[in-house]
């Protein structure tokens, strides 16, 4: 049974040799004929045939031999434990392909990183954080009662929470998707973590974290809860952020009070302790995304999510110090490019940005 191209099977070897030596052939065609000649030569054991090729064909055969086989694109994960110390990466507990372990937090982040990788690869053809297959390194049990998760420029780190207000930061897929997306932004538009560009950086992390969760749960824009961190913040009625209704994720919490995120530019706050309010003002752009998705309908990642991804990777249109307005303009440009025949997408996106006061 012939395993290579059917055309090569039915062409006799002497004809391949003739074709391979034909200088009038375009380079691509020539390479194809040289390739089938090589296979035939291997199969039929005619090693001496190489000597009968002209110099150009010999070069192509030699280069083809040197060419490495295409590398299989696949996720690569490593999960470490810090053992409740402030060390990283710590001790390796589970790596790619290994079975589940006893530690639930390890399995949570292993799975969530897999969902995140698959989200970016199957929807946008993106191979990991750097689009070059970067290994996804994560550390759990960082510090003692550490109530945070962060991206350090190379890996993700998660704390166990204090057990009173916060549970483990590994419990929500959207948080893992959020931290990984900080990595994606770092390799793309690299938005400066200050003021509006910083809030955009935070917002993209929330938006993609939310979409990753929605895809895992197979929820469309209308049925999704659009909450971030609803398992990490203890108490059924609480979450950390809401893209649907910023400022309502938690209300009258006994320790935390009420969610301070604005949903409109009129509530823009400059918090000097949070790089100009990056975790606050992200509510404005988060809400714009939510409004556009619900206006368009269907799954968030199908149309509006595609537009946001294109803008997130548009290094020309979105400079590192981009403002909300710059990002709005980039989304409108990409909506026109991606959905030319469906101007409802562009219209919904423009309406959403206008509604949150980015005009």
């Amino acid at each position, binding site marked *: 049974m012939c395993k290579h191209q059917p055309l090569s099977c039915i062409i006799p070897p002497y004809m391949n040799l003739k074709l391979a030596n034909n200088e009038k052939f375009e380079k691509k065609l020539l390479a194809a004929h040289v390739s089938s000649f090589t296979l035939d030569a291997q199969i039929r054991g005619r090693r001496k045939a190489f000597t009968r090729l002209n110099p150009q064909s010999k070069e192509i055969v030699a280069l083809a031999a040197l060419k490495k086989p295409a590398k299989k694109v696949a996720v690569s994960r490593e999960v470490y434990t810090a053992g409740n110390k402030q060390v990283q990466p710590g001790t390796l507990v589970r790596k790619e392909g290994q079975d589940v372990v006893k530690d639930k937090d390890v399995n949570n982040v292993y799975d969530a990183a897999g969902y995140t990788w698959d989200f970016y690869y199957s929807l946008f053809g993106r191979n990991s954080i750097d689009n070059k297959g970067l290994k996804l390194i994560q550390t759990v049990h960082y510090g003692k009662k550490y*109530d*945070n*998760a*962060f*991206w*350090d*420029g*190379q890996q993700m780190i998660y704390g166990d929470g204090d057990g009173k*207000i*916060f549970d483990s*930061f590994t419990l929500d897929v959207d*948080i893992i998707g*959020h*931290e990984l997306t*900080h990595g994606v932004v*770092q390799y793309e538009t690299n938005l*400066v*973590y*200050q003021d509006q560009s*910083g809030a955009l*950086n935070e917002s993209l*992390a929330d938006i993609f974290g939310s979409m990753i969760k929605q895809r895992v749960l197979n929820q469309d824009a209308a049925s999704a809860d659009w909450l971030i*961190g609803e398992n990490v*913040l203890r108490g059924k009625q609480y979450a*950390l*952020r809401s893209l649907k209704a910023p400022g309502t994720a938690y209300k009258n919490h006994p*320790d*935390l009070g009420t969610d*301070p*995120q604005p949903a409109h530019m009129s509530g823009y706050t400059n*918090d*000097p*302790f*949070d*790089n100009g309010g*990056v*975790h*606050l003002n992200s509510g404005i752009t988060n809400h714009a995304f939510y409004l556009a998705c619900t206006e368009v309908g269907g799954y968030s990642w199908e149309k509006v999510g595609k537009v946001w991804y294109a803008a997130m990777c548009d290094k020309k249109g979105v400079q590192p110090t981009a403002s909300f307005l710059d990002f709005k303009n980039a989304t409108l440009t990409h909506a026109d490019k991606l959905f030319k025949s469906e101007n409802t997408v562009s219209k919904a996106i423009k309406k959403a940005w206008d509604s949150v006061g980015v005009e």
Partner: protein
Amino acid sequence: MKLKLIEAGKFSGLKKTAEEDLDHLPQELQQHVENIFSASSEQPLKVHAQSAYRDKEKLFIEYNGKALPINAVQPSKQLEALIEKLKSKLHY
């Protein structure tokens, strides 16, 4: 006058604080804090923007209406001990 320790910039966006009245603490420590804050530059809070860290907590000390990132000050042993004490008292 009170010295406040502020932890901010975390994933949750929530702040933790703890404070201590300096009035009943050694004069030397009070003077050291005065000196640090009177010598500080105009926009010291933006120093963190260059870091690759995202959502990592940042610590600040605030005194007399002015705040400084903790890694921008060189504390004396007394102030260092006070900051450690305040860290253990941080709350939402």
